[in-house]
């Protein structure tokens, strides 16, 4: 019987090892919808339906807050900082990530930054131009990225598109983000990154 008990221990050790070895995190993936541009590079578009995808609007002196109960800091140093957080959708209108947009004014310098986080793919950091271009869109440069986006560079545009649908449940509009990846970023070994 002792021999059977020890055999059970061995089986238990193997089962626990197998179970933990096989345990994994699987992110839900949506197929990427990427177009190839005529002059090289890839284009991917995202959008944020407003107001339903808006998680937070943080700015000083708001009369109504989103989310309800938000306690935005009143520190003077943040007086010119506005931050928003959204769920972000792909071209099929499926939520695929979370994004944050920060706009700040600091002396002569204005800043508008986007960070887009896609759990199954990685993240992108975009620094936008302050002045909108003709056509109402703003252009920004992809400054950094992680995982799938770590080697890509390019640019992204943002544009507000008002909704012209009469549907009762339709959003008031959407923020259209179009990312263009035009090549691979050079990241030298001096950055100490693991190859």
């Amino acid at each position, binding site marked *: *019987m002792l021999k059977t008990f020890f055999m059970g221990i061995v*089986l238990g*050790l193997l089962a626990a090892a197998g179970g*933990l070895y096989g345990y994994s995190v699987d*992110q839900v993936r949506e197929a990427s919808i990427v177009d190839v541009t005529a002059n090289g590079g890839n284009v991917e578009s995202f959008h944020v339906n407003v107001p339903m995808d*808006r998680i*937070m609007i943080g700015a000083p002196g708001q009369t109504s807050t989103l989310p309800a109960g938000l306690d935005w800091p009143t520190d003077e140093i943040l007086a010119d900082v506005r931050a928003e957080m959204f769920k972000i959708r792909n071209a099929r209108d499926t939520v695929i990530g979370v994004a944050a947009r920060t706009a700040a004014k600091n002396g002569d310098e204005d800043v508008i930054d986007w960070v887009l986080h896609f759990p199954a793919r990685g993240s992108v950091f975009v*620094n936008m131009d302050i002045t909108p271009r003709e056509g109402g869109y703003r252009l920004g440069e992809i400054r950094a990225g992680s995982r799938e986006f770590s080697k890509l560079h390019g640019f992204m545009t943002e544009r507000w598109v008002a909704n012209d649908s009469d549907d009762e449940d339709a959003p008031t509009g959407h923020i259209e983000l179009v990312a263009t990846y035009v090549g691979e970023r050079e990241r030298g070994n001096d950055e100490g990154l693991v190859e």
Partner: protein
Amino acid sequence: MKHVIALVLGFFAGAIIFVAGLTYNPFMADRALSPLSVTDEEVITLSFSNVPSESIIYTNNGDSLQQSSLQGALRLWKAPIRSTSAPHPIKVLQLWEAPIRSTEAMVTVMRDARNQTAGLGIKISSDSETSRLMFGETIADSIWYVYLPERGSFFIEQTENYWPFVREVALPAWRSSANNWRGSWLGDTTAGPGALGTAAVSGGSGRVEGVRMNGVESLSVRAYSADGGLIGAEGRLIIEIPDAQVE
């Protein structure tokens, strides 16, 4: 019948021995010293509250509000903070859609070394597919966006390993009869992508525009509940700025 009982008892004993051996494996020790604690370069140290209810907003899939004890215990292993923390404020939009269900997002005030408000921090993190419990890796892929009016904006990408936290805080809390833990635990959560276990930091605007830097995030915990998440905790971000690249 006796043999079957012996086999079953042995099986469970073996499984318990393996898990205990993994949990208390001395070879999976914490990294004792942050590589940035011995740097000669200029360093920015930012602190923030890691307690969701003390942040500006904190949101996740909201499962912690309705999960059973068993579900909570199972999730504790792969997401020790997200699995237990409730969104804040309570009416914040939750991340319930399938592609973002394992993601959490936090907006918080960043404080400088004198405990004065220095700027705003936004952290978004997700369970990583590189997690391997077998090897003591409870990995989260996370990013920070930090805006400091006096310095500019920073984008921080990192992989974090919460295994030491799970082993030394979350599991003792889960095992205690009151489902909580009190004490003093301090550890670096950043595990990469830098070769020395540092985060990759990119400057976006201001004085650090275009500068590539290193960073480390650490977590200091005083109280944790297996039911409610972090109760007393503070995070710290250390960013190393190469002297030659600062104006």
